[in-house]
């Protein structure tokens, strides 16, 4: 039992060093760079971090939340959980904490298969500009939530292309008709997306200024034309994995 405990402690120390090493890589790229903390936290504009007597809770809070009113941003959503833990551990070592706590990184989200991973890239592929899915859909933290969250993933590429969009209606204002997605049509104002072209334009109008009618000539098939069938299949695989 005692031997086991010692082994564990050693293993933890080793793991902590690995984590801190990873943290150093994150630090070099994210914190040391630019006008910020400099190599090994000795300052390059932003405050020095090395040898300041910071404890790990403090470091974790600042890295995660940032400091309002200063140039220190919050990294809570910017870094992966694993990188966050690692960089906090590394900054702890700069402050004399030899064996920082290194909570085992929790993997976030499902592990994606080859095709689904490819689909994930295609979904938000910057090379496609406004022709990518993420122009209108937010999935797993990426993309613009113009459309409502995806609830059902089409079973096949054919079904994907034939997707019905009954919530897209026709708006008419000043003699012009356009496909629209209505967000709210209240007493105070009317808020809707104009889907005439990509990217969709969110517009606000006086109540009654835009007349809405059901049905539209707009088709989902016409905005996924940047992808071929194999790519659409990969995107479906991604959506099935991500929305499980």
């Amino acid at each position, binding site marked *: 039992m005692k031997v086991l405990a010692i082994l564990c402690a050693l293993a933890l120390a080793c793991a902590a060093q690995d984590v801190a090493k990873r943290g150093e890589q994150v630090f070099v790229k994210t914190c040391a*760079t*630019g*006008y910020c903390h400099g190599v090994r936290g000795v300052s390059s504009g932003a405050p020095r971090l090395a040898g300041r007597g910071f404890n790990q809770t403090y470091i974790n809070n600042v890295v995660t939340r940032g400091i309002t*009113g200063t140039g220190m941003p919050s990294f809570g959503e*910017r870094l992966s959980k694993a990188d966050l833990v690692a960089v906090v551990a590394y900054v702890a070592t700069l402050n004399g904490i030899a064996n920082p706590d290194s909570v085992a990184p929790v993997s976030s989200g499902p592990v994606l298969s080859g095709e689904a991973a490819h689909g994930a890239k295609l979904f938000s592929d*910057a090379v496609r500009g406004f022709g990518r899915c993420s122009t209108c859909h937010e999935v797993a933290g990426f993309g613009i939530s113009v459309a409502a969250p995806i609830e059902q993933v089409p079973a096949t590429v054919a079904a994907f292309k034939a997707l019905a969009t009954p919530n897209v209606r026709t708006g008419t204002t000043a003699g012009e008709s356009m496909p629209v997605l209505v967000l709210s049509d209240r007493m105070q104002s009317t808020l809707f997306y104009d889907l*005439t072209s990509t990217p969709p*334009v969110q517009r606000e109008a006086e109540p009654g200024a835009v007349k809405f009618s059901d049905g539209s000539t707009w088709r989902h098939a016409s905005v996924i034309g940047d992808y071929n069938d194999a790519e659409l299949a990969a995107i479906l695989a991604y959506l099935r994995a991500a929305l499980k």
Partner: protein
Amino acid sequence: MIGRMRFWPILLFSISSALAQDAGATHADWPHYGGTQLSWRYSALDQINTSNVKALTPAWLFQTGDYAENLQATPIVQDGVMYLITARARVFALDAATGREIWKYTYPEPARSVPGFVGNRGVAIGDGKVFFGTKDNYLVAIDQKTGHLVWRVNIDDPRQCGCNITAAPLVAKDKVIVGGTGGDGAHRGYITAFSTQNGRLAWRWYVIPGPGEKGHETWKGDSWRFGGGAPWLTGSYDPALDLVYWGTGNAAADFYDADRVPAGADKSKDINLYTASVVALETDTGKLRWHYQEIHDDLWDWDSAYEVLLMDREIHGRMRQVLVHMNKSGITSVLDRGTGELLKVFSVPEVQTWISGITEDGKLVRRNEPQIGKTTTVCPTAAGAKSWNSMAYSPRTGFLYIPVNELCEDITPNDAPADEGQNYMNGAFPVKLAPGRSTYSHVDAWDPVSGKRVWSMPYKYVLLASMLATAGDLVFTGNPEGEFFALDARSGNKLWSYQTGAGNRGGSSTYAVNGRQYIATSTGWHVSVVGGALLALFPDQDWRLGSTLVVFALPEGSR
């Protein structure tokens, strides 16, 4: 055929006749970020002038209440109404004579935190709307009379691109055109134009050419996808030539080029087009007419994103349609704005070690390049011989008015791979004071035709506020200690100053209401990015933050 062609130059000359001497001057209004679309930051108003500026006194001030960062915006004025925006996109319409609030629009705080710096350098007006960019990367149009939302459109997902909008948009014809940040990240920069009327996309021009496009051969492998170049400031527009001019950002990774230059047999390809360039785009289509690259294969974070001044000047006895543009290194190019031909080039900082010089045809001599495994000291710095704050130009003196900083840095590059939307500077570069000096900045007057400095007014610390020139032969700017001051445009002598109470790191403008001339300036230091890095160089200083607009005029009855 040949005979007919000979007539063309004459015809072209008569069609696109020279600009009037004060074409770039503002009058009662200050309608654009750079004053007019020619970006001179110069006003024809001369009620306040060298003989009476001593009497200049605050008329009113406006506290925005948004102290999240600071106030950087250049105030826009039309028909006696001022439009002002804060760092977190609170937009105000104010009575420009009294500061009374007419309406206020508060852009909703993004639900999730978004990457990128928080700051906003101004709104644009046109087509009855006020346009501005946001930190979550939307271009927004609100009604100029009511402040109500008209439309908004997302430019790109900031969580993916690591980019957003801090610049004022440019309105040209029926389009509102905007550049974005992200030049120091793994991102492919672009300029996007939308219909002022309904926000629909008009065009997007990518700084880095894609596969099959000319210039693509200047990028290694897939590096074009993340090669930076983000044009993060505001361009200019020549209505006669119908061309939009913009400066593009540095190549990324900033301090390390092995992953982005082709490095084949043909060394002339190792230039990373169209980063660190001035480009002329057709207003209706976004099509590239010409480009001029100021820094081939940039390795020092030498953005060319800064303002583009359009003017006509006589050069070698011939009236030329020129543009003047400064790169972050301080290299300043005078180009024929019809063709992109280089007519003159000069460098403004006194301390310059990244090159030993520049030839008349714009070639950099003995580049002192950062190298992996070494630390290289260069001057000036990635904070800029000048930062994003604009210079000004007076047609009365013919001089450019430029704030210049004298700093150095130790660049230690690394070879980290690109990670989409994440920082891709690949280097640490602690900034330090240039050695052997007691002053670290100066306001200069430069003649763009001769390329010579006419006068220089030294300042102890650094200068990071925009310049304003007027027909009263005055040049205004502010310093980090809070002093807003006026110099004689012909001599550089300081004629007036006022302690505004907080560091100056924004833009100024001048306008008139009911015959009274006002001078307005944004105040409040900031500690993110350049402002913070440079404050750290002066440990005894504590330049004050804030977010207050201060407006000056001559006392009533003294005019």
